[in-house]
């Protein structure tokens, strides 16, 4: 699809303009052919059955966007970026290195900017309940992404069943709270601990596996947990789920209308938004904790050992590193954060059922980690924003959501094969590397 236009870019600009327009026209025609049936025709149900309505205006907009975009790419973008593509591999690497240098500098500004935005969001005028709900959702996935990043991005252990730990966390809180009346703040560490234990339980049998084999076993593990939750009716209430899960309190203050409530204590009028804002800051704090711990661990010997393990397990063993303990700590740490996120999910929803912990969730979190660039913290944030935010944006075009989603993944993998932020470029694959430069490993070969 991205087959270059005319090669005469450096030649006469008039010629390149003409070629560009022709090229854009072709693209627009293709867009028309695709958009006409998909966007232009729409079925509506009438009393007598289905009827067709047409939306040619929308088709025209889509075609115009494609035409303008293609023309802009041809005239403005490709002339500058094309030469690097055609050059020798060495030049390409240099160009890429420069790119990533630039990206790193941008990232330095991006992270604090995003953080300030996240903290200030509830105070901004457009932050209504809907925006905050999306914010909470995005932050939950950021936290899950960061948690999974420890296992997949740092330690290089491909885990397709991460949702299991999310489920363990959620059910731990839900069961402890509804049966024993324990408060959220007591259950949170317990849920993290229990999830970490399950991380160890998963970790032991898969110690000797890697790559594809590990992926399959973790996938199965995720399903086992879900199916147990579904069928252990006495404990989990099966497919009916657990409802009336207690909401978290603010240092013992409930978010309700009553005497001892949050609003009454601070002498402000009651608003149901208080709880939403509180939940928002709660998940923000939890996510930041995950990030902080990951960044700290990375500088400690155990974090370096994780990265070394991802690079070369045999070399690790030859250096006296206990690979068993290293893998298990990675599984347990990642699982613990999944458990935290799960108990947050339970307290926020007030209701959980096995429905919420399907494989698609694991896939989504893994996609966030991979698209963000394995091992990159800020990449996870961007990917989560794009994917979860994108899901919400396209909510009205429900039918096209997966289409757009898939398309976005293909685009990212074409343009940035190692994820959006690939500057640290760890890979989850282990293979003979010999003297291959690090920049050229890991893309296209995985």
């Amino acid at each position: 699809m991205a087959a270059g236009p005319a090669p005469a870019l450096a030649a006469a600009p008039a010629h390149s303009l003409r070629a560009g327009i022709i090229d854009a026209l072709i693209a627009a025609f293709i867009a028309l052919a695709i958009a006409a049936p998909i966007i232009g025709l729409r079925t509506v149900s009438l009393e007598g059955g289905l009827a067709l309505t047409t939306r040619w205006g929308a088709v025209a907009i889509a075609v115009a966007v494609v035409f303008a975009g293609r023309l802009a790419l041809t005239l403005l973008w490709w002339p500058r970026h094309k030469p690097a593509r055609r050059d020798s591999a060495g030049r390409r690497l240099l160009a890429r290195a420069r790119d990533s240098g630039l990206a790193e500098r941008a990232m330095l500004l991006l992270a604090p900017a995003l953080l300030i935005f996240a903290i200030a969001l509830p105070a901004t005028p457009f932050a209504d309940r809907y925006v905050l709900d999306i914010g909470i959702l995005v932050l939950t996935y950021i936290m899950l992404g960061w948690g999974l990043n420890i296992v997949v991005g740092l330690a290089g252990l491909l885990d397709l069943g991460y949702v299991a730990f999310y489920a363990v966390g959620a059910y731990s809180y839900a069961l402890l709270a509804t049966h024993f009346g324990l408060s959220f703040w007591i259950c949170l560490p317990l849920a993290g601990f229990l999830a970490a234990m399950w991380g160890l339980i998963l970790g032991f049998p898969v110690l000797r596996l890697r790559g594809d084999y590990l992926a399959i076993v973790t996938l199965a593990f995720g399903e086992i947990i879900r199916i147990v939750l579904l069928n252990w009716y006495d404990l989990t209430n099966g497919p009916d789920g657990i409802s009336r899960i207690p909401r978290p309190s603010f240092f013992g203050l409930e978010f309700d209308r009553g005497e001892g409530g949050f609003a009454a204590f601070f002498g402000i009028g009651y608003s149901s938004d208080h709880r939403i804002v509180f939940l928002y800051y709660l998940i923000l704090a939890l996510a930041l904790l995950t990030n902080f711990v990951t960044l700290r661990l990375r500088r400690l010997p155990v974090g370096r050992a994780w990265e070394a393990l991802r690079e070369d397990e045999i070399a690790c063993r030859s250096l006296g590193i206990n690979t068993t303990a290293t893998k298990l700590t990675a599984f347990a740490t990642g699982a613990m954060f999944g458990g935290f996120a799960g108990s947050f999910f339970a307290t926020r929803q007030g209701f959980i059922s096995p429905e919420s912990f399907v494989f698609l969730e694991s896939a989504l979190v893994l996609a966030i980690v991979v698209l963000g660039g394995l091992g990159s913290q800020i990449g996870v944030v961007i990917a989560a924003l794009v994917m979860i935010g994108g899901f919400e944006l396209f909510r009205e075009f429900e039918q096209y959501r997966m289409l757009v989603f898939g398309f976005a993944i293909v685009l990212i993998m074409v343009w940035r094969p190692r994820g959006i932020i690939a500057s640290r470029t760890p890979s989850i694959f282990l293979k003979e590397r010999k003297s291959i430069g690090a920049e050229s490993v890991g893309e296209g070969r995985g």
Partner: protein
Amino acid sequence: MTGPLLQVRGVETYYGKIQALRGVDLDVENGEIVALIGANGAGKSTLMMTICGSPRARSGAIRFDGSDITAAPTHQIMRSGIAQAPEGRRIFPRMSVMENLQMGAAVTDMTHFADDLERIFAMFPLLRKRSGQRGGTLSGGEQQMLAIARALMSRPRLLLLDEPSLGLAPIIVRQIFAAIRDLNRKQGLTVFLVEQNAYHALKLAHRGYVMVNGAIAMTGTGAELLAREDVRAAYLEGGHG
């Protein structure tokens, strides 16, 4: 101290049903360089891996510094004063040279790290220049130096080298071997190396062992082995050296 630093007695190792080592006896004395040579598939690397505990010896005994390490877990063996530069170098390609060296020191307390680093950089000045670079961007010879340097960071008493000349240009091989000789002479480090490059290995080593089909076939000083007709015919004809 009595007895050799490393003592291998009657070691037999299997890969499944296939016997790779058939009762190997071998000693490495304190302060020596010992070379193990042999053809492809003779079991040289298997012996080295067996010393490290992976795979395990099915029978026989391996003693390091008087204590039996035959059944110890690999990571414990590698913490007891043995370090290895594995076959194929196996540096961490996406970690910087510095991080690679830090990994080498992972099992020690980090108090000596700065001193050890200086010592290593004095020995391999190139690594200092490259310390911020990723391991994977180094040339083959530089990677081998890094692999040896990384092994040295754990302050070993015995250094195991598995095919340090593998895939390197002759001039680089000479540099690497000169560095090994220096380590032995100046710092008294005991070295046990496995090599296909028999000529260089035997020139370097005080003593050598020749392995054929999973058992030791000959032993002697490096010079003795080099002078033997059968050794020359089997391992040196064909343009080594």
